[in-house]
């Protein structure tokens, strides 16, 4: 899981924990009669940027508090006003997970922790009417294109008309107590029962000791801000514990045709089709990002697959190339995209020039970029066949760029007509772009690009960047890879088809209706939204598939030592989709060096062993801020987000005895000791009299 000490130590820790639990399980120690483990892997953890810290931490030895389950608002008042047994640990459904509640909890000073329980029957649709999003109202505004310094005239726009009106910037607040999310039903019931049995006030009167209590352990190592904790991490040979690590993952991308160093890439010849790979929540181990990310990812993938079927045609007729790319860490200040731009500026995208590698992949610069098409959230259109196209007012002020953009728009329009399932509607020109990767590019170069979303103004997604942004949110009903029933995958597939068609036109300048493969789309959707152990992943995932759980993909960009199976799996899938099978057996299905223009992947589970030749690869997605030496952490140029290190997070439930009882017991002990000392000393000192040694024992 994310952010352990290092990969090795992480596994080591898991082993430890396992053995620990084993020892708990082994035999019937009284421990097991006292404590119960509660699901504790979804903890709210700390992150840092150049100036601030966000998230939550417990004390070093954990926070304990008397459990109090909140059923309605009044219960809060009871706790804050009457509750005598402070500190309390509050347990409530996401219904109450609002800033106001947490702030009040903080201010009351009576709360030492919060657990958010999600019962089976919890249905956001009906209960969480006013959506819920951890994000700010203007996600990534600071590191985006329209920040006050660069473009003051558009900076204000989001303030007026926020993209994400549901945004309670809870994710970006630093809380004084640990917060855990608990979805495991047995744990939820445990909490509920224990509360009912011991703590629940009887008509307003608090119960007496012993009371059911929780211990929340999620101690974060880092503090203050990235600068401080990065420094501390770097200090000293002795300090082995990581205070924090930069957010880190890999951008996954591939081109339609391989680019060999030897042949020159013409200017404006690379069409970039981008989507963002990551989503975020307050809590560890859960970040479904169904609409925030998955919709875009899948659309891009199936579009890519569709296009790739016509690879030959395109290559033959045009010199254009198409670059499909999934950006990592976009949630945290466009890490992936800004890194790509930075690399391009440094002339090292994808890699620095190596002299002794043949068939080396060519460098791509910003000048090579022709069009830029980005897919943001495309999953929840108001009416099923209407998507919106956003363009950047600033760059399009420039006339020829404007022409290009219009051209692009027309092509998209035609494409949508051709496919005739989904309409593409252009958003008003003067509306700035919604949060999107293209902003990182536009900060440095004027390119004509569009962002395709499902919203005109504010997000249609009520749970943007929250753990509720799952398949339920986008109404993805399929229960298995092949179920044809649900509409969602059809919709995504249509978008993909339109995209593919448009790209085909862009590349070849000829119209041709290209339809994406709905089965593929559905399978992909099923994998990412419901179950990462689906067939597709089994086939393409290779080794990585083993490590994945039958859960929705965790899309949080973690740290270098963190878990990134989903990234590898995604890359393999891309490779499968954007690659041609070649006649090679496992042994020679490999590359001489990663700098080659082509990569080879061997899928042993894909009809018993397939070797695929492709351009798909990963490149590091870590903010340039950590590469530029003496980078000024305060200058909001690049993302400076780091994640705190921690050992393990766990929740325990148990009974707390009354202090009085404890005192009594201790007194009893002392009395017993003193008494016995007196008696023994007496008997010992007068043994000879007491046991009348005048009569030898054997004689009596």
């Amino acid at each position: 899981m994310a952010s352990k000490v290092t990969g090795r130590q992480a596994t080591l820790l898991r082993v430890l924990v396992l053995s620990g639990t084993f020892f708990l399980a082994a035999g019937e120690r009284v421990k097991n009669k006292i404590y119960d483990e509660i699901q504790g892997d979804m903890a709210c953890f700390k992150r840092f940027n150049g100036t601030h810290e966000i998230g939550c931490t417990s004390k070093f030895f954990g926070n304990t508090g008397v459990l109090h389950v909140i059923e309605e608002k009044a219960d809060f008042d009871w706790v804050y006003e009457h509750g005598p047994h402070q500190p309390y640990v509050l347990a409530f459904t996401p219904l109450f997970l609002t800033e106001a509640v947490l702030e009040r909890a903080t201010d009351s000073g009576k709360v030492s922790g919060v657990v958010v329980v999600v019962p089976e029957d919890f249905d956001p649709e009906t209960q969480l009417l006013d959506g819920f999003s951890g994000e700010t109202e203007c996600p990534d505004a600071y590191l985006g294109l329209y920040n006050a310094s660069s473009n003051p005239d558009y900076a204000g726009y989001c303030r007026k008309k926020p993209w994400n009106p549901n945004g309670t910037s809870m994710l970006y607040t630093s809380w004084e107590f640990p917060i855990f999310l608990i979805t495991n039903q047995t744990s939820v019931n445990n909490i509920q029962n224990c509360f009912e049995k011991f703590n629940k006030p009887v008509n307003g009167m608090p119960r007496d000791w012993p009371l059911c209590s929780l211990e929340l352990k999620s101690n974060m190592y880092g503090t203050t801000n990235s600068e401080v904790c990065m420094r501390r991490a770097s200090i000293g040979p002795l300090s082995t514990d990581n205070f924090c690590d930069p957010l880190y993952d890999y951008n996954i991308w591939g081109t339609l045709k391989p680019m060999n160093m030897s042949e020159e890439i013409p200017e404006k010849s690379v069409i970039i089709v981008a989507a963002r790979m990551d989503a975020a929540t307050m809590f560890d181990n859960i970040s479904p990002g169904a609409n925030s990310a998955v919709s875009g990812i899948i659309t891009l993938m199936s579009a890519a697959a569709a296009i790739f079927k016509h690879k030959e045609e395109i290559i033959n007729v045009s010199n254009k190339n198409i670059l499909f790319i999934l950006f990592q860490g976009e949630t945290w200040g466009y890490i992936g995209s800004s890194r790509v731009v930075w690399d391009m500026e440094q002339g090292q995208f994808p890699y620095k020039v190596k002299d002794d590698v043949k068939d080396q992949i060519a460098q791509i610069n910003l000048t090579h970029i022709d069009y830029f098409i980005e897919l943001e959230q495309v999953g929840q259109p108001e009416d099923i066949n209407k998507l919106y196209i956003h363009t950047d007012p600033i760059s399009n002020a420039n006339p020829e760029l404007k022409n290009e953009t219009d051209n692009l728009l027309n092509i998209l329009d035609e494409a949508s007509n051709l496919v005739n399932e989904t309409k593409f509607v252009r958003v008003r020109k003067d509306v700035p772009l919604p949060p999107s990767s293209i902003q990182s590019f536009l900060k440095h170069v004027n390119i004509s690009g569009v962002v395709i979303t499902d919203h005109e103004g504010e997000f249609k997604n009520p749970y943007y960047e929250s753990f509720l942004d799952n398949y339920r949110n986008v109404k993805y009903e399929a229960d298995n890879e092949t179920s044809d029933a649900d509409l969602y995958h059809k919709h995504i597939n249509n978008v993909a088809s339109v995209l593919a068609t448009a790209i085909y036109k862009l590349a070849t300048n000829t119209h041709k209706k290209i339809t994406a493969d709905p089965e593929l789309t559905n399978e992909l959707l099923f994998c990412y939204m419901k179950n990462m152990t689906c067939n597709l992943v089994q086939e393409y995932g290779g080794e990585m598939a083993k490590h994945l759980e039958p859960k929705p993909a965790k899309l949080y960009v973690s740290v270098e030592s963190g878990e990134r199976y989903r990234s590898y799996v995604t890359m393999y899938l891309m490779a499968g989709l954007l690659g041609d099978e070649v006649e090679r057996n496992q042994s020679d299905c490999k590359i001489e060096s990663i700098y080659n223009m082509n990569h080879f992947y061997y899928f042993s589970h894909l009809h018993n062993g397939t070797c695929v030749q492709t351009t798909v690869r990963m490149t590091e997605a870590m903010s340039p801020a950590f590469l530029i030496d003496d980078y000024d952490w305060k200058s909001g140029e690049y993302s400076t987000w780091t994640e705190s290190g921690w050992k393990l997070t766990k929740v325990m439930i148990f009974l707390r005895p009354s202090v009085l009882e404890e005192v009594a017991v201790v007194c009893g002990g002392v009395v017993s000791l003193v008494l016995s000392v007196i008696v023994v000393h007496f008997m010992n000192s007068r043994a000879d009299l007491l046991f009348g040694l005048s009569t030898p024992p054997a004689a009596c």
Partner: protein
Amino acid sequence: MDGHVNIDRDEKTLSVEESGSRSGKKRRRSQNQDVSASQPPTQSSRPEGESARPDALDTESAYNNSQTRDPATQGVVRRHPRGGGGGGGGGDAGARGESEGRDGHVSASTRGNVQDARRMMQPQSEWEELEEEEEELKYGAQHVIKLFIPVSLCMLVVVATVSSVRFYTQKGIYLLYTPFHETSPSFGDRFFDAVRNSLILLGVVVVLTVLLIILYKKRCYKIIHGWLLMSSLLLLFFFTIMYMQELLRGYNIGMDWITVSICVWNFGVMRMVSIHWHGPLPLQQAYLIFIASLMSLMFIKYLPEYTLWMVLAVISLWDLVAVLCPKGPLRILVETAQERNEPIFPALIYSSNFMYSTLGMANPDDDSRSQGREMAQEGTSNSGSAASGAEGTQRPRDNPQRRRNAENGHVVADDAGFTDDWRGQLDKRTRQRREQVNNFAQQNPSNVDYPQAHPRDLTAEEDDERGVKLGLGDFIFYSVLVGKASSYGDWNTTLACFIAILIGLCLTLIMLAIFKKALPALPISITFGLIFYFSTSLLVVPFTEKLASQQVYI
């Protein structure tokens, strides 16, 4: 590990002990009187019982003649001629004087205690032997306790650390000598790994020993001393820092370099001084215990699971072999030491008492007993553990052996025994001694009878004159076993191992006293420990846990 040799040490200690041997008496005298005073009422308040009465009476008389040395009793008669200059004279003289006196008293009192009935009918020589035996046993009890306490303390430190500081139970990094990390799931493979690891470790030990021997043979003291000094410094500073770090980290306490370096510097230097030069005894002991526990913590941390157990087994086997087989690897080392008659690497040895070397008690009239004793004592010291009688009866130049043994016990994973060569040497030495004594007696007849006080004082004396010594090697491996046992969080197992080891130690000492034969300290204890660890954790714990959780008592 630790070892900084200073050759002139023995002379120093000798003179030290010589003059030191007085004050203790003053301390003790009072108590003795108390004892003697205390005895009569308790005793006399006891009319006839099967064995009670004669004993009682006799103990009384015994006490009397030991205090007011009534010239009628054998002890005193024998004490007279042998009373070699307790007062004046050189170190040897003084020392010898004491031991003489002690012996005299011992024989007197013990005979008084026990042998009275037999004494009448037995010829002299026999009860000499009996006395001999008694004397062997006499201080056994106290010495066993004197070992119990430090051993328990050492274990306590280790167990406390292991169960409070997580670091020492976390695996991941291992010693260089244990390349096989027991990663494979199957038990068989891991076991095999363990075996290989432990064999490698044993190999290392052997190689080191050989290297040491060669160096010593070649008389490259510089290198040896450098080596030992380095290792001791490493142990001191590096491990101490590590320990501090983990302790602080375990409780998340911030600390600055300045404080730490001052503390470590002071700690380290003080240890060097107190162990290699002069320092208060309690400090020495504390340091030795601490070092031992540090070492065992290192083992616990850096040895893989099964390897550790395997190593324990192998080491104690090795100990057995090295002690009992006629060509123990360390033997050569010792022999050369003997020939050169000089101390090699001084102590890494726990001494319950000041490191004096009082002169051997020379008893002109019979070899057998002193020889027997010598063996026994050498045996003890060889085994790197308590030399129950040794203190009192060692010649100054025996010190090095005792130390070395213990020190082997440490570095070379509990030393070899060099019993046989000892046997070889014993006669020689006893002879030497006798000669010395004799001509000493001739030289200064004035010493033949010495002031009143002495006998009594001497009786008091030997209580603290005869120090007990246990090689830190034994400390370490005992603690390793117990610490490891405790690292699984089951206290029953820990307790069982603890008791088992103590009993093992006890048995070792008893056997020493009875068989008068060199015995290693590790095998019995460790075997017991291992047996009880595994049997407890496999068989007993399920049972007891069931009992405890259902509150059933047996």
